[in-house]
């Protein structure tokens, strides 16, 4: 079963390749879907493998991330979803011995080109982590942190307010901006982290299981938030929660692990990447079908 795809870097034409189905789906959609595949590709991944030392954690990943879409990485735990996600903002660099092979381009530029500075990359590609990690500072200072180090001298108040409004947190905290961020509830802290990421005006927001540490109500609010902000940002989200992926994403990439028979080494692989409706209603690969119907995972 083919897990690759073949897509050109620029806009519209999708080449039709026999075993892989990424054709424009013209059947009537059931509910909200962003427009079809006419959004430009922001990230193009080809044959990406990530190594920790000599251990290959994930192999031969290829997929497009399109602007203004929510792309969800789904699959059982341990199959490399977070590993691949962290490649998009060069956060894997921080791990001793981590190495990347293949290409990952951002608007056509190779992200791993030696001339590229990871600090610049992270300014444009933000990240929200699994466990909310507000700084031990005030709410205001948390949101203002990014703009401040970016050298924004001017009116921080407005930037902070905007970011907090966009993450649906403004009304709850507008009277206590100077209080410590650690006093917020888990859900509020996560929305604060989203506001913090938004404040630097990134193009892409990566989310690593942002709701897994939160209760269902907080989760619901963040899912609503994601649907609202995806029009302004491109979102890539790793999630364990299939239903969540079905609810909020436009495109899904399904990962699983392959176990090497002889060496018992588990490597993550991308099984298929397609529009969400297709993945859930009519997946191409049997492994995908087993996962989304709950037969394993």
């Amino acid at each position: 079963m083919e897990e690759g795809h073949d897509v050109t870097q620029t806009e519209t034409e999708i080449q039709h390749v026999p075993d892989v189905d990424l054709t424009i789906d013209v059947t009537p959609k059931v509910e909200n879907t962003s427009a079809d595949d006419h959004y430009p590709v922001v990230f193009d991944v080809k044959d990406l493998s990530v190594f920790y030392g000599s251990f290959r954690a994930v192999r031969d990943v290829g997929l497009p991330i399109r602007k203004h879409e929510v792309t969800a990485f789904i699959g059982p735990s341990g199959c490399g979803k977070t590993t691949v996600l962290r490649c998009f903002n060069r956060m894997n660099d921080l791990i001793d011995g981590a190495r990347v092979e293949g290409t990952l381009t951002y608007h056509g530029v190779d992200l791993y080109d030696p001339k590229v500075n990871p600090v610049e990359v992270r300014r444009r590609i933000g990240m929200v982590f699994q466990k909310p990690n507000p700084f031990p500072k005030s709410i205001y200072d948390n949101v203002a942190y990014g703009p401040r180090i970016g050298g924004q001298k001017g009116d921080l108040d407005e930037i902070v307010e905007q970011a907090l409004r966009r993450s649906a947190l403004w009304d709850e905290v507008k009277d206590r901006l100077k209080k410590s961020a650690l006093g917020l509830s888990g859900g509020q802290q996560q929305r604060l982290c989203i506001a913090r990421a938004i404040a630097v005006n990134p193009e892409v927001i990566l989310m690593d299981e942002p709701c897994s540490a939160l209760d269902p109500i907080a989760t619901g609010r963040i899912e609503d938030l994601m649907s609202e902000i995806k029009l302004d940002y491109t979102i890539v989200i790793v999630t364990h929660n299939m239903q969540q992926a079905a609810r909020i994403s436009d495109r899904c990439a399904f990962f699983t692990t392959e176990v090497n028979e002889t060496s018992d080494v588990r490597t993550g692989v991308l099984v298929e990447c397609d529009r969400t409706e297709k993945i859930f209603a009519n997946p191409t690969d049997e492994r995908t079908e087993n996962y989304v119907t709950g037969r394993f995972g």
Partner: protein
Amino acid sequence: MALATKEKTDSALTGNGRGAGADKAFRIVALAAGLTTLLVLAAIVFSTTQRAWPAFAKMGLSYLTSTDWNPNQGQFGALAFIYGTFVVSVIAVVLAVPISIGIALFVTEVAPRRLRSAITTVMDLLAAVPSVVFGLWGFLVLRPQIKGIYNSIADFVHPIPVLNRVFGPSLSGQSFMTAGLIVGLMITPIITSITREVFLTVPRNDKDGALALGATRWEMIKGVVLPYSTSGISGAVMLGLGRAMGETIAIALVIGGSPQIVANLFAQGEAMPSVIAHNLNESSGDYQAALIGLGVVLFVLTVVINIGARALVIRFDRNLKGA
């Protein structure tokens, strides 16, 4: 098979059986061993204070506030020694703390894995060198060479008002500054080791959060690692201060043995532990009591600083687990 009677079962289960006596005895022995430290500590306090009492009684508060130290005339004002200890310790800490923090940050945030153990090995070696060897080197090697440097600095600074008092001419290479330099070198390993452990407890998630926003590594350190570590670092600094105050032999060899309270850091001075080291053996009577009294003062000071340091580190631990 006969059923065991109720009584037999009872006694089998409730009886003390073999080994109970041995267990109790062992426990008592272990407890006694544990109490030994308490005993020794109490004995130190009691015996030294008792021996020093004649001097305390005679001099009263002026023991600590007067600078007249004349054993021949029975006058024992220790202020100059207290000053010397204070100045040398402060110099040592001021020099050692930034260096230790720099090394600790390097090891935890910057250095690749292979370098880390090499650096910690060097630090361990530095900690292992006995104080008397540092003192020897300081006296025979550093002292003659550094005198010239001091005098150059003094000449350079001569026209500047406040600075020319602090960096004045040096008679011999022995001085507060020389002692401070060597003690600073000696306390660096312990401050480094503790701050390193403090930095290692900063949660990865928080550091990642700052980096993911596009912060450079230094910005991340300044914004996340250092704020998290303030009370831990303070504790380490105080522990280093305590060590510096108790350092005896290296100071004895390079401070110059001239008790005086002057602003000139390049001048000779004297500190509490070193005056004891030089004179206790030949002393007697009130003089001896006065010297032992200095030991008491030293003991009290270092214990107080140590307790303060541990309180800070405990608070740091609690902050971490609470937040």
